[in-house]
């Protein structure tokens, strides 16, 4: 058995989610290698080479990989398989762009967003917005897997000596797609998938301006800010704040849902939170069925009261 972890990074350092993929790889056993794809990303490979349990790091550098276009990067991943039995990546938009494309090129049915490993070919994943779990056995020779980070404990620490880093040669630009630009949200607060506390607002918050109420509370608690789809659609918050089936899957110690009704698609993203608090003026809102603590009332009164109570 031989596992290849595809590393997400910004050409300077790996994203922390790499350490969750490493944990999943460890559960599979066998030799573990990492693959770093990018432009001038040798520094990333060097950092990764210190991670515990790694046998080798492969690094592919090419200007065509700079912006992570799947049309250029996925063929490279597919070419790596050879003796590799498992290709793993932490679930997220990059894994969604790269892995299915690579898996199809390698004629493999990828298994996405796994939350459990029962055997080298048997995995658990949620379906129907997390309303059911399914255990599936892959019949393909090479398994392509994306790992839901909330279901794994990251591997911490570093090895005493780094493993070997090998440069691999690679194709170039497919010419199919061109990167034009990005509108990245400035992150003043913890990233949602890593935050210990998340305050999320829904349609009940009423406006982008009112979201400032939540920001003040989040700053006080060092929390990240999330939103329901309705709140994002109304323009109260940017799209990358969305939590749920089609947004981010989060698992903080404390998740506060403020003015959120609790549709199944929203709950899909928060089920693994340690403690869920709901603040809603409708005592029958479905969010109260999943919340550990519920407070019925008007958020515009409760949030300032919470601020005050936290000062004490």
């Amino acid at each position: 058995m031989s596992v290849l972890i595809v590393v997400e990074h910004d050409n300077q350092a790996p994203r922390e989610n790499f350490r969750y993929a490493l944990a999943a790889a460890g559960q599979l056993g066998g030799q573990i290698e990492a693959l770093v794809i990018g432009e001038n990303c040798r520094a990333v490979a060097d950092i990764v080479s210190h991670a515990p349990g790694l046998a080798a790091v492969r690094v592919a550098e090419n200007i065509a990989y700079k912006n992570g276009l799947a049309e250029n990067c996925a063929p490279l991943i597919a070419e790596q398989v050879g003796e590799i039995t498992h290709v793993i990546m932490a679930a997220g938009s990059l894994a969604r762009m790269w892995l299915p494309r690579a898996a199809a090129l390698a004629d493999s049915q990828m298994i996405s967003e796994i939350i459990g490993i029962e055997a080298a070919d048997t995995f658990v994943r949620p379906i129907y917005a997390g309303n059911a779990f399914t255990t599936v056995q892959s019949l393909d020779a090479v398994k392509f897997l994306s790992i839901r980070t909330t279901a794994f404990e990251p591997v911490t620490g570093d090895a005493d000596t780094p493993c070997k880093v090998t440069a691999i040669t690679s194709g170039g630009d497919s010419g199919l797609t061109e990167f034009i630009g990005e509108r990245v949200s400035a992150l003043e607060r913890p990233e949602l998938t890593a935050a210990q506390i998340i305050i999320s607002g829904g349609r009940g918050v009423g406006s982008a301006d009112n979201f400032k109420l939540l920001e003040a509370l989040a700053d006080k608690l060092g929390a990240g800010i999330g939103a329901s789809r309705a709140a994002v659609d109304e323009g109260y918050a940017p799209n990358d704040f969305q939590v749920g089936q089609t947004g981010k899957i989060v698992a903080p110690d404390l998740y506060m849902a403020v003015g959120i009704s609790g549709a199944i698609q929203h709950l899909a993203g928060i089920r693994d939170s340690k403690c869920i608090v709901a603040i809603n003026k409708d005592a029958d809102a479905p969010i109260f069925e999943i919340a550990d603590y519920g407070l019925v009332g008007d958020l515009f009164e409760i949030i300032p009261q919470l601020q005050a109570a936290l000062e004490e």
Partner: protein
Amino acid sequence: MKALVTVKRVIDPYVKVRVRADGLDVEKNDVKMAMNPFCENALEEALRWKDNGVVTEVVAMSAGGADTAETLRMALAMGADRAILVNTEMLPVPLIAAKLIAAVARREKPEVIWMGKQAADGDFNQTGQMVAALLGWGQGLFLSAATLEDGTVSADSEVDNGIVNVRIKLPCVLTADLRLNQPRYATLPNIMKARRKPMEELTAADLGVDLSPRLKVLRVSEPPPRPSGRKVADAQELVRVLREEAKVLS
């Protein structure tokens, strides 16, 4: 220019699913079915491109059992010009679905394939990417905006940290996110008209696609329940329980 749109038949996403007694699937008998919401957005966008004159024909396709015809009729009622039903007993997994779609695309030669970014049943988020790989085409994924300009598509892709804008050469595969548009309703006259629109039926064998399983479902189960919670009286009590009971605040 021709647009191929894929529409999947799924359990209505607002229905609470139940695990079937044999523990191998969820209950699908007497359960309300619907067109996958993301596919509705994909279809709506193709229809808008037709309304604007950039697309001349919208062909809807789906793969599944005989009842899938109902979903294709809905696509025709929304405004698709004709439909292709690939009759397969089982709902195919993404790779097989992608092979069927790519095979239809090789026959139909569309310049764009519009698809939903994921299906609300399996939540795989793979099929569009796989179709693009099999055809060797560019992919625009999780789109909240897409416009056609001089033989390329300028597309806004919703990613983890914001929005990425890419320019994709035609022909290409585009997958829709829910924020792309607001799908139209099928009016009664259009539902009547849809009955007379052509629907071609094909099999996997016609398309030369091997249906042998790639994934075996061993078990479907309920997620572990969360212990039931309780209501608190006011903000002060909330802060107290979060500090003392739940120990999630310092």
